[in-house]
């Protein structure tokens, strides 16, 4: 039968990776990144993988992250699995996944126990109320950072889709699945049409 890949395909250049990390090294590296990451692990993941261990170049990292960003689910969790499995197969993916989630899950569970026991204490309620106000502010600033490229490009279709999703989920409180089933095909269709128009 036909070979695995069509003959016209250009083989991707296989860059030799210096030293493939061991399973334990993957676990430890992702545990460290995760524990360093307050309010998001991505910055630390980039620092650890690209700068510190030199397991990937910055371009390889960006490509891998782009893939993980367009897939559903927690991006950094996806990144750990894709990254770990690239070096050590499925076991490597599991080691990185366990390193990323294991230690912080233990910490968060301890905090959950403390919250369940002491959450009604007035001082703690006030402190948490203050922290959540600031945390919402942090989320808003991340949101503005993501919006800036759309606004600078004057990408009106993108801005319209963004606004429609915002209203449907945030104001009208429609279920996520329904909104996505309607908006994903629409948005991809528009992007394809515009890409075809641009290349024609």
């Amino acid at each position, binding site marked *: 039968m036909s070979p695995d890949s069509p003959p016209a395909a250009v083989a991707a250049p296989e860059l030799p990776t210096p030293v493939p990390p061991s399973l334990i090294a993957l676990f430890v590296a992702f545990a460290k990144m995760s524990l360093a990451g307050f309010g998001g692990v991505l910055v630390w993941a980039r620092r650890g993988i690209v700068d510190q261990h030199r397991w990937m170049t910055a371009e390889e990292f960006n490509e891998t992250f782009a893939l993980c960003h367009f897939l559903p689910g927690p991006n950094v969790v996806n990144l750990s699995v894709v990254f770990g499995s690239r070096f050590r197969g499925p076991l490597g993916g599991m080691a990185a*996944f366990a390193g990323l989630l294991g230690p912080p899950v233990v910490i968060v569970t301890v905090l959950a126990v403390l919250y369940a026991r002491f959450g009604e204490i007035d001082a703690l309620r006030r402190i948490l109320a203050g922290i959540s106000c600031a945390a919402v502010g*942090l989320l808003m600033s991340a949101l503005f950072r*993501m919006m800036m490229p759309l606004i600078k490009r004057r*990408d009106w279709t993108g801005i319209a889709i963004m606004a429609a999703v915002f209203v449907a989920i945030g104001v009208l409180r429609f279920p996520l699945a329904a909104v996505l089933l309607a908006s994903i095909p629409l948005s991809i269709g528009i992007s394809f049409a515009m890409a075809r128009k641009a290349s024609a």
Partner: protein
Amino acid sequence: MNSENDPVWALVWTFGLMSLFAVGGANAAIPEMHRVAVEVQHWMSDKQFSDVFAISQLSPGPNVLIVTLIGYSVAGILGALAATLAMCVPTAVLAYWVSHVLRRSTQSRWPSIIQAALVPLSIGLMGASALILALTSDRTWAAAFVTVAAAALAFATRLHPLWLLLGGGILGFAGLI
């Protein structure tokens, strides 16, 4: 064993399904978590939800760990583990599979087009998260002011986020919020 009233199975089902729809990561899924946990299942109050969000931002690790806290409040330690794995494993398996398929296939342009199409969606979802959390957290003018000030500082400076969370906590403790 697999009874419909078992809260652990409810968690697994809820978050397992949500993980496959969570375009744009954990913070973009917050409106859906709020809708399910507060409005549909009545697992927690509005106040508890905003507390849980604060704790998840305060602790190290990926933002997705808010589901660990929701799981704990529903069904203890077993619930915490079940919710975390349900939210993370299905999409991790999908990511593993897709990355292998893409590595074997020739370079095509559809991933970048799909990605470009999903960016506005995930920003819209994050905007909805910010709105819903602001409505649950910012019940006074002072609270809203702290949120706006934290947003401006985080946007304009390179201050470590932990300092801003700490500042919010101190203002809250002092009874100013």
